[in-house]
């Protein structure tokens, strides 16, 4: 009996200890004031930027550890970084880039033109199989001219060379470490776990899918203020919210609308920023399918889709209604003077009637042997996406178009997309701060040659995209893309649904300048300027 009583007391004490411990943790743990803790949902797989597959290892980590010849500034335009200046020949095929002096790698070795030549040689070599190789296809040759100058020879002029060809997609790697590794073995090099860069930070410790710790690179020329940058992988939205609320984390670079709404309740304890995203969620029609090859049907689908209701319902009107495939946030390029598609199901039905699509006994429109009945593939796992697409199917049904949802895992969806085995696919579009869409809309990009999986082809758009990609004069280029946006709004190669939500949350412990802060994943371009509150 006494033993039972003792056990009971012991158990009670343990429970109390656990509960008190829990409360203490809930209230926020002791924090090192010099550390900033950032939260991410998905960790990267490698620190070698040539092979980064996710946003984290393809864009975020490279901006923290590495540097490229240029970077994207708060104006979404390229600025020199490891380069100090660049000039090009009149035909745009020869570029001369002067490099920054006095830069050192995090192991102390000096940065020279050899590193730049090595990096581009490896990037454009198909043996390397870098996922960024597709962004460098126009680069024919890179040669060094002394330690601080390089010459690029391009196959054709590229208007995106300074933005993409010199950007984080081409983060410069150390020749003195990787120069002897055969290009086809770079992917397997231990460098991916033990990187050496010229960026503001160096990697201190990496526990995959858990914690990545960066400390200042002692040789960095962009000296950071923050003593330790700690990235934690937390896949769960609620846990991210809890960590921000109890003060154990300082930054969620991409909150998503759900976490953002939860964090709004505890503002101003947490500071919040929203940005007009550079991503647009679209429904991609396969124009090989009868019905979807008809521009009248695609326009009617735009009119019949109550996109504003979706934006109000799911995003509380925090995201702009897109009027094309160039996001509203790209103010330098966006053209709003194009055909608009306000919700008008009556007009949609009238257009379809006039085009010969008659409503059949089953409520679905048909013309000859063709029926407006489609399958919409969506990536499983997103509640908002599923709900939004259910609303879309209801809107389409109201105008006589049957859409059946089919959720599937991402690899299976991509496999069907690239085989052309789909009617409609719900997916994200964009991400670039440049309006070029050649990879997704040009006739020459129809698979297997490229990624125009909807097989859209239009000679006018082909001409405009080619002209835009090779025009180096900014004014002329803007005029070309203004026209391209009018054509896109007219021909509707994709049904643009809503601009993706882009939000960042940060604690009072972290000092950011909202005027110069960019949306994730470009947020880290000026990480050396970030500070902790005194």
């Amino acid at each position, binding site marked *: 009996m006494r033993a039972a009583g003792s056990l009971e007391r012991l158990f009670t004490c343990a429970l109390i200890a656990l509960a008190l411990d829990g409360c203490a943790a809930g209230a926020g*743990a002791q924090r090192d004031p010099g550390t900033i803790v950032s939260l991410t949902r998905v960790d990267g797989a490698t620190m070698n930027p040539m092979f980064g597959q996710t946003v984290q290892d393809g864009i975020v980590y490279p901006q923290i550890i590495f540097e490229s010849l240029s970077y994207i500034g708060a104006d979404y335009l390229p600025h020199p970084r490891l380069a100090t200046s660049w000039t090009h020949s009149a035909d745009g095929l020869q570029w001369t880039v002067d490099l920054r002096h006095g830069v050192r790698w995090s192991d102390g070795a000096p940065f020279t033109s050899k590193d730049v030549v090595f990096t581009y040689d490896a990037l454009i070599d198909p043996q390397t199989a870098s*996922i960024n190789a597709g962004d460098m296809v126009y680069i024919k040759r890179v040669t060094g001219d002394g330690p601080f100058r390089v010459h690029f020879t391009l196959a054709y002029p590229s208007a995106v060379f300074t933005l993409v060809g010199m950007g984080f997609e081409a983060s410069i790697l150390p020749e003195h470490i990787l120069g002897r590794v055969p290009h086809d073995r770079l992917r397997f090099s231990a460098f991916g776990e033990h990187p050496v860069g010229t960026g503001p930070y160096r990697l201190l410790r990496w526990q995959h899918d858990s*914690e990545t710790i960066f400390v200042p690179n002692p040789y960095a020329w962009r000296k950071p203020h923050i003593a330790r940058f700690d990235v934690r992988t*937390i896949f769960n939205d609620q846990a991210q919210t809890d960590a921000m609320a109890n003060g154990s984390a300082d930054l969620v670079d991409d909150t998503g609308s759900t976490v953002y709404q939860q964090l709004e309740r505890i503002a101003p304890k947490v500071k919040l920023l929203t940005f007009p995203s550079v991503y647009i969620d679209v429904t991609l029609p396969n124009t090989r399918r009868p019905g979807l090859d008809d521009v009248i049907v695609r326009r009617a689908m735009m009119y019949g889709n109550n996109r504003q209701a979706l934006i109000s319902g799911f995003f509380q009107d925090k995201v702009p209604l897109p009027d094309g495939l160039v996001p509203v946030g790209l103010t330098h390029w966006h053209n709003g003077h194009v055909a608009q598609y306000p919700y008008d199901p009556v007009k949609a039905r009238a257009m379809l009637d006039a085009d010969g699509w008659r409503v059949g006994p089953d409520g679905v429109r048909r013309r000859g042997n063709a029926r407006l009945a489609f399958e919409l593939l969506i990536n499983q796992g997103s509640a908002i996406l599923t709900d939004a697409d259910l609303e879309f199917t209801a809107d389409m049904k109201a105008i006589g178009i049957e859409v059946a949802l089919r959720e599937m895992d991402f690899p299976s969806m991509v496999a069907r997309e690239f085989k052309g085995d789909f009617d409609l696919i719900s997916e994200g579009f964009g991400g670039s701060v440049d309006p070029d869409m050649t990879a997704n809309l040009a006739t020459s990009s129809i698979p297997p040659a490229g990624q125009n999986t909807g097989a859209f082809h239009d000679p006018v758009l082909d001409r405009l995209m080619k002209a835009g990609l090779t025009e180096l004069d900014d004014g002329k280029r803007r005029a070309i893309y203004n026209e391209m946006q009018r054509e896109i709004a007219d021909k509707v190669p994709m049904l643009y649904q809503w601009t993706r939500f882009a939000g960042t949350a940060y604690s009072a412990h972290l000092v950011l300048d909202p005027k110069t802060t960019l949306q994730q994943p470009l947020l880290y371009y000026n990480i050396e300027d970030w500070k902790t509150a005194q």
Partner: protein
Amino acid sequence: MIAYIIRRLAGAVPLLLFISVVTYAMMALAPGGPAAILGPRGALSPAVMARINALYGLDKPWFVQYFYWLKQLVLHGSLGASYVDQRPVVEKVLERLPVTIEMVGLALLLTLLIAIPIGIYAGAHRGSLFDNATSAVGFAFYGMPVFWLSIVLIDLFAVQLRWFPSSGLSSLGREDDPFDRLWHLVLPVVAIALVSFVSWMRYQRSSIIEAMSSAYIRTARSKGLTERDVLVRHALRNALLPIITLLGLSLPTLVGGAYFVEYVFSIPGVGYLTFTSIFARDYPTLMAITMLTAVLIVLGNLLADVAYAIADPRIRYG
């Protein structure tokens, strides 16, 4: 006994080979491949994609790829490197194994602590209100999908009441605090225990019922022993034997992880690794996890048989 064990182990080799062939074929024939999902949509040109496929041998028929995998395993004892991060898959699995063993081990312990006493009492009081009520409650939990129950637990105890954290293994800055870790494991452990305790409880209950109707129990009663003594000293010892078998069979679960629970609670264990590897079509990692689980199923069965023989002198293997 030693000869028996050797025979069983030798017999397991063709079984493991068969499992490896079937698993590899299923993975390789699934839609989408590793190269197709590398990077954001549209990032890879066909030439680069072809080169990546060639680097990993994915340009060859699946049975050739399987042969290379097997050759590497037999000749070099290597399970290969991950397509995702190029790290040895054994290293990836081993770094996550302790987390899974800890979580599932605690869940198993909790399950046994709940299920065995309830099973014994229910078996000894067959048809009573307690027996019926515990079975009904147990089956209700058993019928719940564990991912759904996990979400309900998170909503109730983490979001509404805020008693426990909703995910992860530790609070930020308290990674070495065992109490904090335990506090984080409460909800996932309870989720696993709730959906699994009924099967253990019913096994225990059936064993007790069977034991209580045996001749030696009648003898014990006829000797004038109290019902408590009959239960504890005679029935219980024999009724615990089937549990040994079940414990052996639960070995693969202990290592393979509770996939859905790890995913919902963001526990970076083997189960979570399995999930992410499936979506990444990371064949080497999936093969390593599958083969590890298969080996443990074989060993678990063998262990159960051996333990049974040790516990019950009437059983002899020859």
